[in-house]
């Protein structure tokens, strides 16, 4: 006796976002598990009797950008990371979460001078958690102060183009370090700091036009550096969390 399972693709368009050259679409798809030893006959899957097929809703996010580097991160309502897997050789990413999920897209291309970031929310599955807040919860305590200092200093410098570029560069550097850590090759704190500083200085070097009149060193780097010194983070994860707060401040959020 065999179970006959028909695979249906249920498409629920949930979100569509547009931010400059970043174009994104998201929809719910289902992944089918527990079908070891299946056969495909025509348009049906034949699976063994002892198998326990399960459908699980996932988000399928498609990002279209001219940038050579596109980073996609996801987090749930509690700001906990949600697993994201890129489908090989496509512009699509599978987001393995449930309910409301925030997607952060960072597009960077040094040649084309693209530094963009887009954040949007998708709902995965039919039953979103109703008590989700509208936005991710802010970082607590000292990080909130750091965020505020970064935000106010950047606003005083009054160079929004560079501010957005710096935020994207910092997030890209932080994500790259995160990836290294996930692969088990986490850099030391000094190396992590050097990587982020290098990303910041590369972006500052690319300033054009009126942005070159802005004093980022005294207006933003010095006060934020002092705040970070006071915070005195001693581990790579805490440093990266601090730099995410710095980036959020640069974004004016």
């Amino acid at each position, binding site marked *: 006796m065999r179970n006959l399972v028909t695979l249906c693709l249920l498409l629920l368009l949930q979100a569509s976002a547009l931010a400059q050259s970043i174009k994104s679409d998201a929809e719910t798809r289902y992944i089918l598990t527990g079908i070891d030893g299946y056969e495909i006959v025509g348009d049906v899957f034949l699976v063994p009797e002892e198998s326990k097929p399960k459908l699980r809703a996932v988000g399928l996010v498609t990002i279209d950008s001219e940038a050579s580097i596109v980073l996609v991160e996801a987090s749930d309502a509690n700001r906990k990371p949600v697993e994201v897997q890129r489908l090989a050789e496509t512009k699509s990413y599978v987001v393995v979460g449930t309910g409301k999920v925030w997607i952060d897209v960072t597009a960077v291309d040094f040649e084309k001078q693209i530094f963009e970031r887009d954040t949007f929310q998708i709902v995965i599955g039919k039953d979103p958690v109703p008590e989700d807040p509208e936005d991710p919860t802010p970082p607590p305590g000292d990080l909130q102060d750091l965020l505020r200092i970064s935000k106010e200093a950047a606003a005083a410098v009054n160079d929004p183009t560079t501010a957005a570029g710096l935020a994207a560069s910092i997030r890209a550097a932080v994500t790259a370090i995160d990836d290294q850590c996930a692969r088990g090759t986490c850099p030391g704190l000094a190396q992590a700091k050097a990587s982020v500083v290098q990303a910041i200085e590369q972006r500052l070097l690319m300033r054009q036009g009126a942005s070159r009149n802005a004093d980022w060193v005294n207006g933003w*780097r010095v006060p934020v550096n002092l705040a970070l010194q006071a915070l005195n983070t001693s581990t790579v994860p805490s440093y990266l969390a601090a730099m995410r707060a710095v980036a959020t401040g640069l974004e004016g959020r």
Partner: protein
Amino acid sequence: MENEPIYTIPPDTIDYRDSFAMAPSLWHLPAEKWKQIHSVATGKSVKIGIGDTGYTRHTLGPEPIAARSFINGQGVTDRNAHGTHCAGTALGRYDGDQPIGVAVEADLIVAKVLSDQGSGGSGGIAAGIRWMADQGADVISLSLGGGGSDSGTNAAIDYAWSKGCVVNAAAGNAGYNGANTIGWPARYSGCICCASYASNMQISNFSSGGREIDWACPGSAIVSFSNNGSGYRTMSGTSMATPYGSGVLALIIEVMRRTGNAQWTGAEAVRAFFKGNMRDMGAPGFDVRFGHGIPIVDEVLAVLVKNELEWV
């Protein structure tokens, strides 16, 4: 234009014109020291405009990102050698371990504003300055001069500053005997005025003097590109000191920009920077031969590099 001043390669430039295929060691760019300097800054992202007799591509020279002749009937190709030599000093690349130029990764913009015979009308020079500024030049290097002020050239220099571009010009090769011998446009307040010193750290005897001198750079017996495409030659003059200074300005601008400083807004801001950061030479304090002094490049860059900003 009628009655416009004619600017030329500063007269009496001492030109040894000895050509050789291989670069010897260069006294003004000691290899070991400059390798260290280039680990800090190379002129990356900075554009240097050379307003001179044009440019003949050298095997170790950059391909210009923009080039245009302002001389009727003559193309950009340098059949004089002066412009190519200046370009090599400002941004010639490495020959083995020996850098030929100061800003080895800067971009080159060429405006041929002096003819193959070494002279050009001030109208063409002014147009060339404006054009280089429009091409995005961060530094314009003018190894030329003459005896009269020209309002069109001065206005073009002001226009370059409005685009954030520093104009560095040769003081002249008239020596100094107490009377101001600086030529134009170096004498104009919008220009940074460059004198010349020799390997013995003394002012070059040909270097013009006066109260407009801002700084002095190496200009005696300078080896740089020949215009035969691959060789070298030695030349002397404030014409040679000026592109060295322009290369140094490119390194300073790179570090300023990278660390997040606001750019200079005018020649006075550059002078204020020089006052605190050049090594005083000659008579104590500002003097009419060395100006504010000479650039000790590693020390100047060290002031700008913000090592204390270790977190962001």
